[in-house]
């Protein structure tokens, strides 16, 4: 039987083991059992408190830990929780007192891979528990990874289906709404030229109807835009050109709000393969958002640089770990302002269609969702955060084809 088990679990890699145990008899016993050379333990260390265990685990990486739950500075399940939360990759075997079988079983639910009952194990069952714990942890992590991948795929499928439905709905609605809009518009045109009354009020009313018609049409156009998937015309383009063009498109607003613009663009900027018009649209949206958040005389700073994504950035920007890998290289473009910043309770809603805090000033709430959609169609991303000091930062992430 022992022969067969060896096929499943590799008993020959050298192991480093941390023993967390404050009972001298117990840890001496464990240490001496692990000394047997045939068990290939390359290193073992004993710590008597949870604090020391945490310190040791931070300093050195261990293949597996044997943990007594009742220590001077921590008791019961809390000891285990503390360790598994801080070191989610570490396989743990719990060492419980005799007659604590129930507790032992319970520990498996809190993230331990196996448990030993004090004085009921032999050197062989100990080593087997350690090796099996390592293998179980490996399988557990593999399963977790697969599950995550599956849920990403599932979310994508749902999203694709949602976009398909929105797309169909949007073009149907667009057709039905634009026809009456055209009737209204030509009706107003006719009346403007033919109303004979010498009363300015009539012209004001007609102007308002015309403006409202254009606004309704713009909403429809934005909605179609949001729904139009995969109609990108990608070509190698200079991001710097896109920035210049976008700045000139919003020049009027920059002047009106007395905003100054500064730029910091890396010297070794390579072309990106994008749909130029779409990315311009994104940059214009972000510039306008920045400009409108500023009261007067503020600054918008544009920064472009190459770089890697660290796992902290992936997390804080809410990126999918399956698309954006720790260490991969990307092109970053930040648009930073020293305006009002974003209220914490709104941070999660920014990219929801029709979320706006500028409704009274004509905001529709499609700028960010449309932009995000466009970036995702380019396999890049967009996120908006508050800056550490004041104002907000919108970041665009582009893949650079290397």
């Amino acid at each position: 039987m022992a022969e067969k088990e060896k096929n499943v679990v590799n008993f020959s890699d050298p192991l480093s083991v941390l023993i967390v145990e404050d009972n001298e008899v117990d840890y001496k016993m464990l240490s001496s059992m692990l000394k047997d050379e045939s068990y290939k333990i390359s290193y073992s260390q004993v710590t008597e408190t949870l604090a020391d265990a945490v310190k040791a685990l931070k300093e050195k990486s261990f293949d597996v830990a044997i943990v007594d739950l009742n220590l001077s500075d921590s008791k019961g399940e809390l000891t285990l929780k503390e360790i598994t939360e801080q070191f989610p990759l570490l396989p743990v075997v719990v060492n419980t007192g005799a007659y604590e079988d129930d507790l032992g079983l319970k520990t498996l639910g809190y993230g331990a891979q196996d448990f030993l009952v004090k004085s009921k194990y032999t050197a062989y069952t100990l080593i087997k528990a350690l090796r099996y714990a390592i293998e179980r942890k490996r399988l557990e992590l593999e399963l977790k990874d697969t599950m995550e991948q599956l849920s990403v795929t599932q979310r994508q499928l749902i999203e694709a289906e949602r976009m398909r439905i929105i797309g169909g709905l949007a073009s149907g609605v667009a057709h039905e709404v634009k026809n009456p809009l055209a009737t209204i518009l030509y009706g107003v045109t006719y009346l403007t030229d033919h109303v004979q009354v010498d009363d300015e009020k009539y012209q004001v009313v007609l102007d308002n109807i015309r403006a409202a018609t254009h606004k309704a049409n713009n909403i429809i156009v934005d909605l179609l835009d949001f729904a139009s998937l995969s109609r990108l015309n990608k070509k190698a383009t200079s991001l710097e050109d896109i920035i210049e063009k976008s700045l000139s498109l919003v020049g009027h607003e920059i002047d009106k709000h007395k905003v100054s613009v500064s730029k910091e663009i890396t010297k070794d900027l390579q072309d990106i393969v994008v749909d130029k018009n779409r990315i311009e649209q994104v940059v214009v949206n972000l510039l306008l958002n920045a400009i409108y958040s500023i009261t007067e005389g503020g600054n918008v700073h544009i920064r472009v640089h190459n770089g890697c994504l660290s796992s902290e950035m992936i997390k804080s920007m809410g990126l999918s770990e399956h698309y954006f890998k720790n260490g991969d290289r990307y092109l970053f473009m930040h648009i930073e302002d020293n305006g009002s910043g974003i209220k914490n309770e709104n941070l999660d809603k920014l990219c929801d269609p029709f979320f706006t805090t500028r409704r009274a000033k004509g905001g529709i709430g499609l700028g960010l969702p449309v932009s995000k959609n466009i970036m995702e169609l380019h396999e890049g991303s967009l996120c908006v955060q508050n800056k550490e000091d004041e104002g907000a930062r919108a970041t665009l992430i582009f893949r650079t084809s290397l």
Partner: protein
Amino acid sequence: MNTKKILLVDDEKGFTDVLRLNLESTGDYEVKVVNDAREAVKQTIAFRPNLILLDIIMPFLEGPDVVMALQENESIKNTPVVFLTATVTQEEVDQQQGIIGGHPFVAKPTNFEELVSSIEKNAGMVY
């Protein structure tokens, strides 16, 4: 007489009414309205327009079908057509320099001035 004859084919009666008023009030156009696309060919033969403004999505017969039917008729097959449609956006029209699938397009709703300039650009002789 210097007026151009425009055949307006669109199922939306409210729309054809106001557009006809606008066109006629310029004094430059004589307009005939067709709200049922199945009548389009017959009316083209009878009216001999300089240009057809043609909607795309209509019940019974869609815009492109009307164009094919015109093509089958030697006496009217060269009549210029401008599509007038709510299915595309102005941006898409601009990107294609106003021509999609070989025919000039105008997106609904578009300013009356722009519509007129497209009519002037495309209107032809009556054969």
